[in-house]
């Protein structure tokens, strides 16, 4: 099985602070991996480096065997990796379908002008992530946090990326919304998407991941199955607060 994502000796420093400390791991195509750690461990910083939003100090990131180097975010997305954010970033005045449309757009001004939107695909994706027909024309500003998470997930999928980085997808959600998003992620796994997920909600994360990586102060402290990592002594001491 080929590696969808390869991180090698990744280092990111902010002045004297080491946010990512010689981090290396691989994610196989179709694999679902959880990235856990205490607040400030550097999980989101890893996401930002994979997406090119932050430039690593040193180290290498490869996507489907090709080094990403200094490529800009938009190009990385077109190469197949996309992310969601802890705080969703919708286009508040645009409707649900228009938000999804932006994800489907080609990066060519000419195509944007000459080819109309593929409404069927937009509607299908909106339905797939759990929106109803009544929601299609609603502006994003009228949506609940659960719906905003669904919308962001839909736009991320619409980009055509096969590697999804999901940052705190369960944050701020009700129990019902967590189970809905969880079901969505299960569907994506079944469809063969490769995923790297950050979540503090460990019970929600457990059924969704094949593998877990725990980091603290930017350094990997444990890796293995969910149970192996959760029962690791270093993880218990640093993250779960148990001695």
């Amino acid at each position: 099985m080929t590696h969808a994502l390869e991180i090698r000796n990744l280092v990111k420093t902010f002045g004297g602070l080491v946010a990512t400390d010689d981090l290396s791991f691989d994610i196989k195509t179709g694999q679902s991996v959880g990235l856990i750690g205490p607040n400030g461990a550097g999980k989101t910083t890893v996401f930002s480096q994979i997406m090119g939003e932050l430039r690593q100090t040193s180290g290498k990131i490869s996507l489907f065997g090709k080094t990403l180097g200094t490529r800009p975010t938009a190009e990385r997305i077109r190469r197949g990796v996309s992310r969601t954010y802890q705080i969703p970033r919708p286009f508040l005045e645009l409707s649900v379908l228009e938000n999804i449309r932006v994800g489907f757009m080609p990066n060519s001004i000419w195509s944007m002008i000459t080819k109309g939107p593929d409404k069927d695909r937009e509607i299908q994706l909106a339905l797939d992530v759990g929106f109803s027909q009544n929601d299609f024309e609603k502006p994003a500003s009228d949506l609940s946090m659960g719906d905003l998470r669904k919308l962001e997930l839909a736009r991320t999928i619409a980009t055509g990326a096969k590697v999804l980085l999901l940052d705190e997808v369960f944050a701020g959600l009700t129990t019902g919304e967590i189970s809905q998003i969880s079901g969505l992620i299960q569907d994506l796994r079944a469809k063969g998407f490769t995923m790297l997920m950050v979540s503090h909600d460990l019970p929600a994360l457990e059924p969704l991941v094949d593998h877990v990586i725990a980091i603290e102060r930017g350094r990997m402290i444990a890796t293995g199955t969910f149970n192996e990592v959760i029962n690791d002594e270093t993880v218990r001491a640093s993250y779960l607060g148990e001695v």
Partner: protein
Amino acid sequence: MGLRWFHFAAWGLFAFGLALLPELVSKGTLRTLIFANYLAIFAISWDLLSGRTGYISFGHPFLIGIGAYTSAILTKRFGVEVEIAIPIAVIVTMIAGLIVLLPALRIRGSYFALVTLAFMELMYQLVQVIRPDLTGGTRGMSGIQTLTRGAVNGFYLSSVLMFVIAVAAWLLLRTRIGTALTALGLNESAVEGSGLSTTKLKMFAFMASAFVAGLGGAFYVHYLGSIAPRALFDINFVFTIIVAVLIGGASTIVGPIIGAFFLTFLLEYLRPFLPGAERYFIYGGIALLLYMYQPKGIYAMVMKAWHSLHERAAK
């Protein structure tokens, strides 16, 4: 694009109304309408850039001025035919649009607005000191070839130009590029995070805006037959353009036209009562009230009324 019969009907009605106006109003009013048409063109140009993308330009006369000066210099100083001078002026303005784009790649918000203001100020100083034999220096230029004679012809030419620009921009922004530019104005990082090059989108918006500004500026100077730097590169002119867009409704194309006509007539009809700058208090007051109660402008008010009528009729 989602075009419906009533869209064509509305634009057709608007064209018909414009065509009929010379039969209905005095020549004085027609001259006012010509200014309203050119203000509408400049407002559409500003809206294409700032209304959509959120990059507020305080220096739009920089682009308008480049279009106007290029065409004026080419025709008056070099004897170039006006049919050739205007397209060249538009191309030069679009190149200038690229210069304005450069700061937008790094800064936005009030910083970008101030840089554009500096561009306008710089242009104002430059046309006065660099080659005044070409630009006419502080006094500007007069005796520039005009395209039409009389108020009626001037009105028809400006109306056709405004109408074609408005319909073209309206059609363009109903495509996916309109959605992408609106998204850019709402959340630039999320556009980048959707796999789209924001630089490319910004470049398109700046080029489209510069195209319209250059075209409008060139035609305007060939309507006036003269150019005065102090009137052109004037902060009041900038605010008139911006207020026209905001009163009418930013990011709508139709809004800037409504705003331009509303503002021109408001200022014109207040003139007998308030001949001085006091008129600007009235229009400032109206603008303020509108922003407080309907920040999306007159267009949104009209649409709201239309939808509520439609709903009532459906019941």
